[in-house]
Each structure stands twice: as C-alpha cells, then as structure tokens.
C-alpha cells in the first residue's frame, strides 16, 4: 500500500503579514507546514502503521517548501517529492502539475488539506481527483480501510455522512480527523537523510494574481460596563437598532 499526503508551506496564522509592492511579503513571517495538510500527513502515517506499506509526502511550492517536507519526514513519512514552483498557482494548475507524478506513484489513496491557509482555496482535492479520474471525499473526519474500499465520515454543508468509496480516491482533511504528532528528535535526525526528489515545473496559471492588499476594517470600539447587565443590554440593543441599524 502507498499513502500520499500532498502538502504546502504557509505562514503561521498568527504571523504578522505585510504588503510590499501590491504583494504579501512573507519575509518576516513564520512559515509552517499547513495545519490542514498536517492532518493528511498524520493520517497517512497512521494508515501505514496499521496496514503497512509506504507513506510519501508530495510538496508543492518554492524552494523553502523543503522545510515543510522535512517536517513531514521528521513526523515519519518515508520519502518526499518536491514539485518546485515559485509564485501563485490556482488549484487547477497545481493539480495539472501534480497529476503526472501522482499517476507514476499510483498510490492507494491521497490526502490533502481541506483549505489552504495562504490562498484560501478549498478546491485542490476536487481538482486532483478529477485529474486522476477518481472520487473525492471532502472534509473527512474519520477514515478506515476495508479491503479495496475505504469507509469515511465527512462533513456536508449541513450535517455529515458516512460513505464507502473504491480506492484509489482523494480525501481532504479537517480538524477532528486526528491529532497530529510532534516530530521527535530521532525523527528529525532521520529526516535529514531521507530522500527528497526535486521536480522542476514551469506552469502557466489559469488565474492571474493582480494585487494583494490588507483592508483592516476600522472598528467602533464602544465598550460598555456590564455591572448593571439589564442597563448595558438595553443600551447595546439601542445602539444596534438606532446606530448600526442591524436589528
């Protein structure tokens, strides 16, 4: 069996972002393995531990993405493939870049994050599945292998459902699927020796990024003292009704 986690490196959600010349400048930001993708890495490791086989991390992004691939290797993934590309790419373009590599590996299943923490896309799982001609299960919260199929629980827009799907298939992850492990010191040492194959690609993204800006909405900041709850509540409701006109 072969379990693949597709990952990217993104700024930590708590990092301060700056804009430089119409683009987000990440030079001062802490960069991490996307936490949504990390659930995919953890799940691939658990599946490998239970069923045997190989767990492979496939990273997409600029040279620095190697750090995130190393993190996944330190968690226990067996080897890495780094598809090297600098700059913005839409999910269809990313899927086109990854499809030949994934087809060559012919994995049992592929995991990737439900949403990217930088470009806020939720479509990579669906686009990858279409590229490979396999089904997709989105926002997975439970996953079990049963022979040549998988049984999975995942979220819908309203509620959730259990599905059975013939493998191979693509699963997108979310919080609740598992609790990712921390890399151990021996894991980090071992990761340094693990193979990362570099694949250079040249792409023409279908979506062109024209500009990025940070629009902070100025907030009113009117804070009332709640020592007298009834009075504070009435004043708040009056403000919402008369000033904000939202109720």
């Amino acid at each position, binding site marked *: 069996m072969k379990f693949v986690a597709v990952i990217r490196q993104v700024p930590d*959600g708590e990092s301060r972002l700056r804009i430089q010349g119409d683009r*987000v400048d990440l030079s001062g930001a802490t960069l991490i393995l996307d936490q*949504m993708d990390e659930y995919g890495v953890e799940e691939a490791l658990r599946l490998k531990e239970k069923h045997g086989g190989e767990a492979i991390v496939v990273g997409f992004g600029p040279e620095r993405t190697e750090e995130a691939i190393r993190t996944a290797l330190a968690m226990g993934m067996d080897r890495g493939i780094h598809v090297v590309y600098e700059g913005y790419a*839409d*999910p*269809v373009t990313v*899927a*086109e870049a990854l499809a030949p590599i994934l087809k060559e590996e012919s994995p049992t299943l592929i995991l990737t994050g439900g949403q990217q*923490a930088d470009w*806020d*896309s939720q*479509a990579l*799982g*669906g*686009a990858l*599945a*279409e*590229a490979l001609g396999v*089904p*997709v299960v*989105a926002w997975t*919260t439970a996953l079990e292998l049963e022979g040549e199929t998988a049984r999975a*629980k995942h*979220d819908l*827009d*309203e*509620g*959730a*459902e*259990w*599905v*059975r799907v013939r493998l191979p298939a693509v699963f997108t992850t979310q*919080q609740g699927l598992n609790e990712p492990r921390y890399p151990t010191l021996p894991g980090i040492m071992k990761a340094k020796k693990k193979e990362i194959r570099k694949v250079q690609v040249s792409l023409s993204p*279908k*979506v062109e*990024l024209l*500009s*990025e*800006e*940070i*629009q902070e909405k100025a*907030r*009113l*900041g009117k*804070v*009332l*003292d*709640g020592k007298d*709850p*009834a009075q*504070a*509540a*009435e004043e*708040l*409701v009056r403000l*919402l*009704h008369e000033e*904000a006109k*939202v*109720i």
Partner: protein
Amino acid sequence: MILVVLDHDGNRLRKGSLEALTRARALAEALGTQVAGVLLSEGQAPVEEARGHVATLFVAELGPYTPEKWAAGVLAAAKDGVKAIVAPSSRQSRTYLGRVAYALKAGLLEDTLESWAEGGMVYATRYAYLNRVTQKVRAALPVVLTVKPNTTPLAEPLEQAGQVVALPIPPVPTVEVLERVQEEKKGVSLTEANVVVTGGRGMGGPEAFKQVEELAALLGGAVGATRAVVDAGWRPYSEQVGQTGKTVQPSLYIALGVSGAVQHLAGMNKSKYIVAVNKDPEAPIFKHADYGIVGDVHQVLPALIQAVKKLKD
C-alpha cells in the same frame, strides 16, 4: 452562455443562489450572452421557483449528493459551451466545482466578493491568508466562479418563466453514501445568516447554549461556536467558526464568552458589525469589536434576550 448553479434545500432556492444569479446576469450582459440555470436534485427541487429566474433551466435528478454526480450534472448542462459557471459558495460547491474547473481547464475564482468582465476576461476580488488579505485576480474565459454569501444583492424573478430541460446523467464512478448523520438544524444556515451568535468557552458548558439559540432565533440568525467549544463536544463541528471551521460575514456577529484568538478571528473578522461580551476587559476580541459589554455573560445574555424582546414589542 453563463450557467448558474441554483442551490436549494429541496423546497426553496437558497439565498446564495439569488446572489449568484445577480452576478451571472451582470457577466452575461458584459459578455453579450444569456443566463441558463441548472438545478441538481436529490429527489425534490424547487423547479417552479427556479424557472422563474432563467430563460432555460436544466434539471438533473441525481440522487444523494456526491461531488462526482454534481460535477457530471454541471458539465452536462455546460456541454454546448459556457463562458462562465457561477455558483453560490459553499464547502460542497467548492469541492465539486474543483472537478468541473479541472475538466474544463477553466480558471477557478473561489469565494469571490465582487466580479466583473472586461476585455474578455473575468476579474474578481477574494480573501486570502485566512481572510486577512484581499486579492484581485483575473482569468480568461471560461471561468468557474463561486460567490461568497452576503456580498451581492438578491436577483428578482424574470417577467416570464423559462423552459425546463431535463438532463439525463449517465452513472459515474463515485462514492456510495451509506448513512446521513443529520444534525439537528434550526433556522438559517451559518454561512448565509445575516446574524450569527457565537458562544465560546466562557459559556461554561453545553446547557448555556440554549440561551445562545434563543438569542439567535430572536434575531433570525444562526448559532456559531469556537474551536474550544466543539472540541469539548458542547456543539457540533458544523457550527465552528474560524480557521479550521467556517468563514462567515454577517451584518451582525455577536461573540459571547469568546476571547478572540487569531484562529477564530480568521472566520469572522469581515463581519459588518462585531459585538463582544466578555468578563475580561483585556480580551483580544474587544480590539475587533464595534460594540462590547464587559460583564458576566451569564447575566448579560439573559438581559440581552429581554432587551431584544422588548424592542420587538
């Protein structure tokens, strides 16, 4: 043709569909083409309401939702060529339209705030970096575009109802739905709601959410929760607002006993008005609030319910 996917709950079109229609009509006018609609049905669909909004309405009976069937339905409706496919943004649409965009080799413009056509290209703005950055993007035709809820005026019906065309969809390899886990759903959907009332860890326990529900119902809104609350099992994951949950942009967001962690702010910081109630005056949420009350949420919440009731009388 501009194809608009009309999302619905079985009985009525969702509000997001009427926003998507407004966007689709604007694109059709700029690109000199017509709008057609597609209605994907699990067995029951508001065909009469939907045909009131488009000259041509494709209807596909597909059985339980799967991304593969929904993608096949949209692609069948689009097979004679489309300039753009427009749909209300939701977790489901952003999944199956990933398939559709790949199949059409189209530019995918996800969760857009605004969109317009110029010089044969489609432009859009959208949030990135967990809602903190606004991107301006463009793509050549054809495009697949999803519309963020609560960003666009609702479309009015046409004077004349359109023709209905049944779309036969051959079976596609897909997942088999074993069992739906229906969470008890009250009122409006979280992402489309005009008012969201969210409870945080400060609520103290699951019982306190009865009053959160009461306030949400009084305001015609939906209930939200923080990660700590869903992790504790007080509320279902589907109600989680934040980086790993849903992103909402209502007119009014009321945060009760919510400290205001960055991960939570990522899911609600674009709300028009933000209200915070917290006993800690130093809680970060107050820095992002338009209005706030420093006080015990267990006393302030019942008082708020009373005050809203009084206003309604």
